[in-house]
């Protein structure tokens, strides 16, 4: 199983289980999943169904109790610290309070690159390009409290792209936004997914958002109940 065959999907999960509070809460109960490079996958499900838990597993932010998860040829359960994997493979966007409040938009985008030994000049140029790409070139020096909710999420998108990730994981990135701002952010992510062939996995409550995705996975009580 460990030999990387040509057809091996980018993300492969087998029988993932996870429970919290000494077995009281079953966040995941036997999740099997395969996602190919370049896919746009939406994950839906009621609150507490295990969507964030699954996303955290793919980000190596959390470990399964049992089962196996491989991403880009790496066995995530064997990583001592997922940081290096995240620094190189993944870009993460949260629902709220994504940004370091005392750093400007520009500096927030620089943060992941501090871990990557990128030359100062190159990283500054890259941060500028990314902010331009998300339509925020005029707000580079604004602090998060000086930005609107939509702008903040676009900074988070720019930051998620700073390490040229293969995968972008977004946990309800539009959950705190109004419809039009939310659409803007989703469109931006979709564009990135198409133009850079970045795999996009997005947790959402929104039916319309899910409608744009290539594939929608429904989760209920820690299990996948539909995958279309």
């Amino acid at each position, binding site marked *: 199983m460990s030999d990387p065959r040509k057809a091996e999907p980018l993300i492969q999960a087998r029988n993932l289980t996870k429970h919290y509070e000494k077995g009281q809460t079953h966040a995941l109960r036997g999740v099997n999943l395969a996602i190919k490079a370049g896919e746009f996958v939406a994950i839906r499900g009621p609150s507490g169904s295990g969507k964030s838990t699954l996303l955290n597993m793919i980000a190596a932010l959390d470990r399964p109790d049992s089962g196996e998860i491989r991403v880009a040829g790496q066995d995530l359960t064997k990583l001592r610290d997922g940081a290096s994997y995240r620094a190189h493979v993944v870009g993460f966007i949260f629902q709220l309070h994504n940004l370091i409040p005392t750093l400007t938009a520009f*500096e927030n985008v620089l943060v992941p690159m501090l871990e990557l030994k990128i030359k100062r000049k190159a990283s500054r140029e890259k941060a500028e390009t990314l902010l331009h790409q998300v339509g925020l070139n005029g707000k580079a020096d604004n602090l998060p409290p000086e930005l609107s909710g939509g702008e903040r999420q676009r900074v988070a998108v720019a930051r998620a792209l700073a390490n040229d990730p293969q995968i972008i994981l977004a946990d309800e990135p539009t959950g705190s936004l109004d419809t039009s701002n939310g659409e803007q952010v989703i469109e931006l992510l979709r564009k990135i997914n198409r133009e850079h062939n970045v795999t996009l996995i997005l947790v959402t409550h929104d039916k319309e958002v899910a409608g744009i995705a290539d594939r929608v996975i429904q989760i209920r009580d820690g299990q996948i109940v539909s995958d279309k």
Partner: protein
Amino acid sequence: MSFWGLILKNLWRHKIRNGLTLLGVSIGVATILALGLLMNGFEQSLGETLRAGKTDFSVMSADAPAILFSAIEESKLEEIEHLAGVDHAAGSLLAITSFLNNPYFFSIGVEANDLDFLGVKIVEGRAFGPQAPDEILLGKTSAGNGNVHVGDKVTMGTKEFQVVGIYETGNAWEDGGAFANLATIQQWQHKEGQVSLVAVKVKDGFVADAVASTLKAHFAGQFVTMHSIAESENFLHSVGIMQAISWAVSILAIGIGGIGVMNTMTMAVFERTREIGILRAVGWRRRRIISMVMGESITIALIAAVLGFIVGILAVKGLLLVPVVKGYLTPVYSIMLFVRAFGIALAVGLLGGLYPAYRATRITPTTALRHE
């Protein structure tokens, strides 16, 4: 923004809190530095007293607990001078009196023709005459402190003297005292025929150590000789006590400063739980988180060191403005002292940063991100 820039930015967020911690550490550094400067000066002055002028070593009585209590019969001077290898031996009698609101004023009685030999340089007026019992030389510092000039009359204890000159030896203790005829001080102190110390110069071609051994053997253990400060047990004892005090203060400073930094940084880490979670989520390794927290605490300590140097130097300068202190304490600056104070500050930063850095690595991104 660089990693370093981020550290400074983080510190700047709590400028008052961090500033107060920094102030606390800098007071510790200042105390260590000031103590060290004065102790260095004390060591050096004492050392110079024992190595006065052109002498190779000094002789004092073996049973005296301190130089001041040393008593040697003046008649032994000639005996010493006749020993093989001795070129010249000069006796001096030390006396402590109250003078110019200084209760511990040093007067030294010597023969007029030994002044030059003992390194006493007249900077104003002239030396006292060999047969002039009322003439006195005042040290540069004591003359300055008492605003006394050549030609003035001064009263020491019950005796009146005529100031005929001002001298300088470069030794803080001596420059804060006075020189008069040996006979005058002997009479005044009722110590006729007695001296405290004998300064010895050996002839060319002789080794001071060997001559000193001959001398000690000749007087069968009656006398001890001091070549350098290191040989004075008494001196070593006082220096030892002072060093112990200075170490105790340093350890206290490390303890208090370290806990202060630890407290501030632990608070900062707890307050930034979510942020640290974000940094971990975007790929920062634990090592970098540790570097960030330790970097912040070390930066506090190093800025405190620089501030402490300034405060310490100013404090010593301020202390020297006090008349009684002036002249008796001369700070002696040495690189080692600054290196030590800096090292102590660095230790404060390192120790203070360890616990909060450890706490920061225990923050798991998933729980941190649930943290509002």
